[in-house]
């Protein structure tokens, strides 16, 4: 019983920590520009494929290919995120937010089909973070991969936290997100902060893609599912609350795994959406409260 629970929790945390990175990037963009980036799930998928593509360039038999590739994936996807801002956000910054909704849906379509065309429709397996192996914890067999996934996600979250709270640039990002007018008056260039936020979100999506690609493979059609999870997490965590969204993403994964193990996947998914609806009815500000003044 205990070993099964530990096993389930480890799986849920590994999956959930990747979802948390996804939600983190998603909510950063919401804060910066007040618009939903519907291509975010596809960015995660693209990150997975970038990892797969780069791993083909590495010589065989390296001990930690995933860790070696992590900076390159983050960088590539940061560029991808900035490109997304340039293509799908910048021309529409004076339009209603829903225009960005559509433009990012279009970018998602482009990403999905370009990758399917280039890499083929089959699922791919990404580079492993660390060597294969199992650790025994209370009778449950936990793979190195799972533990490494959790660790890398935690490090990335910490890095984002440090960037936002301890650096001048991070404070500028947050200031620009909270009050664009005031930030502009203070001499902050919003184009730069918004571009940087998209880049950061892209990098986080790339990181999540890399983490997921080895354990859970990556398919060009995966984007929609990641996107949905991030969206739900953002609302549960309180619209615009960065860490609320990340924690909520983790909770969603744990909830889904535990309910699926106790009853069934179907019930887990149904309860998740019913839960979201109930939450919206009873506590529209999210579990952790809504970030102030973010409601459009």
């Amino acid at each position, binding site marked *: 019983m205990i070993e*099964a629970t530990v*096993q*389930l929790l480890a*799986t*849920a945390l590994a*999956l959930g920590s990747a979802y948390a990175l996804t939600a983190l990037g998603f909510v950063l963009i919401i804060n910066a520009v007040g618009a939903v980036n519907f291509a975010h799930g596809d960015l995660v998928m693209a990150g997975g494929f970038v990892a797969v593509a780069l791993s083909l360039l590495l010589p065989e038999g390296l001990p930690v290919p995933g860790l070696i590739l992590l900076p390159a994936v983050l960088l590539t996807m940061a560029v991808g995120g900035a490109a997304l801002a340039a293509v799908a956000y910048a021309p529409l910054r004076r339009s209603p937010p829903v225009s960005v909704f559509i433009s990012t849906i279009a970018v998602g379509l482009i990403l999905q*089909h370009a990758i*399917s065309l280039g890499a*083929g*429709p*089959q*699922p*791919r*397996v990404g580079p492993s973070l660390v060597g*294969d192996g*199992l650790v025994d914890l209370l009778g449950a*067999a936990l*793979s190195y991969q799972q533990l490494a996934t959790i660790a890398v996600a935690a490090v990335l979250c910490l890095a984002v936290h440090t960037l936002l709270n301890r650096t001048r640039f991070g404070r500028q990002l947050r200031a620009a997100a909270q009050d664009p007018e005031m930030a502009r008056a203070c001499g902050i260039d919003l184009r730069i902060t918004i571009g940087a936020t998209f880049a950061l979100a892209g990098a986080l999506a790339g990181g999540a893609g890399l983490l*997921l690609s080895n*354990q*859970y*493979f990556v*398919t*060009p*059609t*995966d984007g*929609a*599912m990641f996107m949905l999870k991030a969206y739900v997490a953002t609302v549960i965590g309180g619209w615009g609350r960065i860490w609320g969204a990340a924690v909520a993403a983790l909770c969603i994964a744990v909830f*889904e*795994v*535990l309910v*699926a*193990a106790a009853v*069934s*996947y*179907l019930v887990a*998914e149904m309860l998740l959406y019913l839960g979201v609806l109930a939450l919206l009815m009873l506590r529209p500000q999210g579990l952790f409260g809504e970030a102030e003044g973010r409601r459009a």
Partner: protein
Amino acid sequence: MHMTITRSLMTLSAAVALAIGMPATAQADDPLAVSVLVPITGFLALEGTAQRNGAVMALDNPPEGVRVTYDVADTATSPEVAVTALRRALDRQKPVAIAAPIFGTQMLAMAPIADRADVPLITVSGTAKLTELGHDIVFRFFPTDAVVKVAQARYAVQDLGMKRPAILFQTTAYGQSGRTELVRVLGDLGVAPVLEEAIDPGIKDFVPALERAAAAGADGLLLQLHSGPTALAVRQAHERGFEGPIVAGSALHQPTTAALVEPAALAGVCAESASSPVSDSGAEMAAFAEAYRQRFEAEPDAFALAQYDGMNMVLAALAAGARTAEAVKIWLAGNRFQGLAMEYVSDGTGNMAHDAIILCYDGLTRTPVVRKRYDNVDGVR
């Protein structure tokens, strides 16, 4: 400003002109047309692409004296797109035969329309419901669930000794149809599954299902999942230390599926299929596999081969003098054809394939070996 409007109008009129177009009119001595309508985007893109590749391989090498042209169009993931593609093909190409999607739901929508036009649909779709409609234009070159699920269940029960299997099936037409068939065959064998778990194609995490299977006392797993999920289930069962054999559906035999899993995780895992081009060492098959690799930079699978055989049978009908869709239909219904995978003959409802095989992996390579053949399962041939 005016430039924008002019340009928009030009684009619009070009689009309208293209969309309306002029229907092609066929001359008597023109080459005959074949349409390839398969899902090459969306969640069945892997299987659909194999179908397209197999069909194209056959159509590019017609027998002496047969001239065919062909068009490929995507049916994506909905009946709507499939029906639109079919209408377009029927109106614009006037095909004598159509390579049709593996996706059962699309076939259910296309069959009545093709029936009215009397054009044969050559498919690898295994969905049982298709037979119920009773259209005489559907020809299936992959054994239906009524054949391959018999092989899967019998092998699991009779050869591996499963008494309490757990079935994991996808919430798609493929998964639900296969599950119904599996339960029926298991019932005939006197075995009742201890768990039947519906799994959405987006689910990445099989540990809950494996835990529940173990808790229910399952002594083996029967999988009816698509490619990626099959690989996930096999790998996580290995890591989780699930004891008991696994017999997967035909998705596992696809080389792209096995490529996702370390060979060690595949040790002792088996799968049903109609054929396995990468396992077969016959000269003809090896030549096919090599040509396929050369052309598409991918490994051939049983869907590609079945579609290849099916289109070759159509070409054989044309070589035998069929010039119309109706003539092709009659020829397909009334003749035997020795394909690369097996011998095909209609059971009277267009089910052409009657053999299934069980493939198993040895844990050292990703190439399975044929462990057991179930020939003429439905007693038609």
